[in-house]
């Protein structure tokens, strides 16, 4: 057995956790690829937004969170859900509109939430979850609780007023919140280079007097390290941090996207930076994983996703009686 090299990762990330994360990244990828396939086949309705290619930021950030910690997510949120502990079967059931889904089939792709696991929900409104995350952090501060709230959003959301209002609020009140901007280069079809007049969205933190960090969003190790620092600041009462994870979505914005706004060359270039492949290489080089074991994990996850599909397909549909339940508490 090759010598195990100590990786430059946060203290709380054990070797086992690293292998788990590798597995989790495959879960995210296979889940979204499976969803992509089903949408293409018309097996599930509505719309969906896939995070294939962005697995490192979801997995890397959430690796530093405990169950008590909260996240708010976005319309491209399947990865965040899995990273925060959601299981593929109930997520798939939700996309199939089944009662066993996380939202009993009433939320669908854009609204998966698992409040018990600290997932305050994906959000169909761009930047809609950012003020919610601030509110969640306010609760932690007022109730003197130790949890932090991570707020995922995209490059497009950073142009919304509520982003600025929320970051300002969090900064003046020094709330335990970490703003994670997943800059995947496009807000739907709008290239970030045309929509934002600064090179790094992270520099917008300066306007609010909080730290802003640019990270390679396709490098899970780097994502873990910057998150670790931000979480510690938050837990120490030093207030929020803005992290910008530079990444790329491999798929289109949503299910029917001809991707005319970008070139195939650009897509190919980013595929070279495949976050899962890169992490595997790091793990193999560190002696924590072999190619054989990596393949074993990949196949295992693939099977797991197939099982999730089976679970979803076999689950019951809601009835008309469910229509008016849960409108009010």
């Amino acid at each position, binding site marked *: 057995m090759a010598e195990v090299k100590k990786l430059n990762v946060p203290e709380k990330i054990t070797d086992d956790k690293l292998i788990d994360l590798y597995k989790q990244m495959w879960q995210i990828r296979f889940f979204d690829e499976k969803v992509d396939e089903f949408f293409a086949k018309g097996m599930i309705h509505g719309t969906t937004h896939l995070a294939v290619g962005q697995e490192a930021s979801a997995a890397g950030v959430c690796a530093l969170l405990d169950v008590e910690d909260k996240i708010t997510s976005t319309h491209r949120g399947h990865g965040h859900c899995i990273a925060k502990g959601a299981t593929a079967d109930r997520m798939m059931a939700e996309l199939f509109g089944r009662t066993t889904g996380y*939202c009993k089939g009433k939320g669908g792709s854009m609204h998966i*939430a698992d409040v018990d696991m600290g997932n305050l929900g994906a959000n169909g*409104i761009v930047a809609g979850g950012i*003020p919610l995350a601030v509110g969640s952090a306010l609760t932690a501060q007022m109730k003197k609780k130790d949890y932090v709230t991570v707020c995922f959003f995209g490059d497009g959301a950073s142009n919304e007023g*509520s982003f600025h209002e*929320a970051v300002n609020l969090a900064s003046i009140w020094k709330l335990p919140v970490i703003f994670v901007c997943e800059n995947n280069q496009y807000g739907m079809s709008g290239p970030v280079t045309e929509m934002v007049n600064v090179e790094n969205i992270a520099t917008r933190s300066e306007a609010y007097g909080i730290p802003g960090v640019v990270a390679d969003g396709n490098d899970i190790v780097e994502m873990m390290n910057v998150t670790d620092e931000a979480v510690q600041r938050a837990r120490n009462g030093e207030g929020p941090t803005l992290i910008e994870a530079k990444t790329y979505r491999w798929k289109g914005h949503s299910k029917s996207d001809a991707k005319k706004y970008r070139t195939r060359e650009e897509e190919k270039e980013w595929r070279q930076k495949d976050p899962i492949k890169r992490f595997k290489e790091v793990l193999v080089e560190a002696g924590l994983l072999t190619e054989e074991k990596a393949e074993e994990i990949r196949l295992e996850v693939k099977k797991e996703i197939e099982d999730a599909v089976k679970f979803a397909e076999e689950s019951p549909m809601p009835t008309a009686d469910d229509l008016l339940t849960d409108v009010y508490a």
Partner: protein
Amino acid sequence: MREITYLEAVREAMSQEMRKNDDVYILGEDIGVYGGAFGVTRGMIEEFGPERVRNTPISESGIAGAAVGSALTGMRPILELQFSDFITIAMDQMVNQAAKIRYMYGGKGKVPMVLRTPSGSGTGAAAQHSQSLEAWVTHIPGLKVVQPSTAYDAKGLLKAAMDDDNPVIFYEHKLLYKTSSDVPEEQYSLPLGKADVKREGSDVTIVATAIMVHRAQEAAEELEKEGISVEVIDPRTLVPLDEETIVKSVSKTGRVVVVHEAVKRGGYGGEIASMIAESEAFDYLDAPIKRLGGAPSPIPYNPELEKSHVPQVPDIIQAVKETLNKA
């Protein structure tokens, strides 16, 4: 019993609850030492401190969202918006987030919050600070909408709103802040969804909200002198709406005038009128349902124009007579 003002009643309801329940806090613009745009929170920061009487930046979307997020995670915030017109800026958080979270999440999570906000014209504040936009929020399943007309109702309904596990939009009328009524000192709760018959009568029913309740009562007194007996019903909460009380009254009188300050077109009066038309009261209607509401223009600045924008006592009297073919 002692008499206090509507404004004091609102403040007392909040203060009493905040003394009891640490999860309740209030946030909003200039609610600290300034005491809020209309002085409702005056003195509260001194008692409860800046943590729980949380003065915010001018960020309606941000603070509404913060209220929703904190409610979702265990607090019971009261959000004060300086003017109800500003709900436009907080709308995404109230409509797309607060109202839907529980349903979207399949019944997990709840958003126990109250958004308090002064509405209505009559202060000369013109088009952007005088509107009555309550119909907008009544349209959204998941929100509850309250519109008290007296100090007594304000205190009891606000207690119920604070106790409710859903987002409640609580409209206070600016011109009513200074009105007084007998209000018990102790806490009490008036159920959401229970209308109040402010005056009993037999010839015509007036369903009126907020300040129109007072104008309707004035009109009823005038009409009584002419032998016309008017029943005045204040729904008090628009969502949920006490349909039963209204239907019962209209079935009795056979005639109804619905009056609110909000612009008539698309106003909640249309909902009330439709509800009556669809109900068993239909067969007892002996005149077309009459609606009175604001004119289809922005609220003008000139005091006379401003007055003519919204229904006044003579308008209500005229409408009642029209339903009786006595106009």
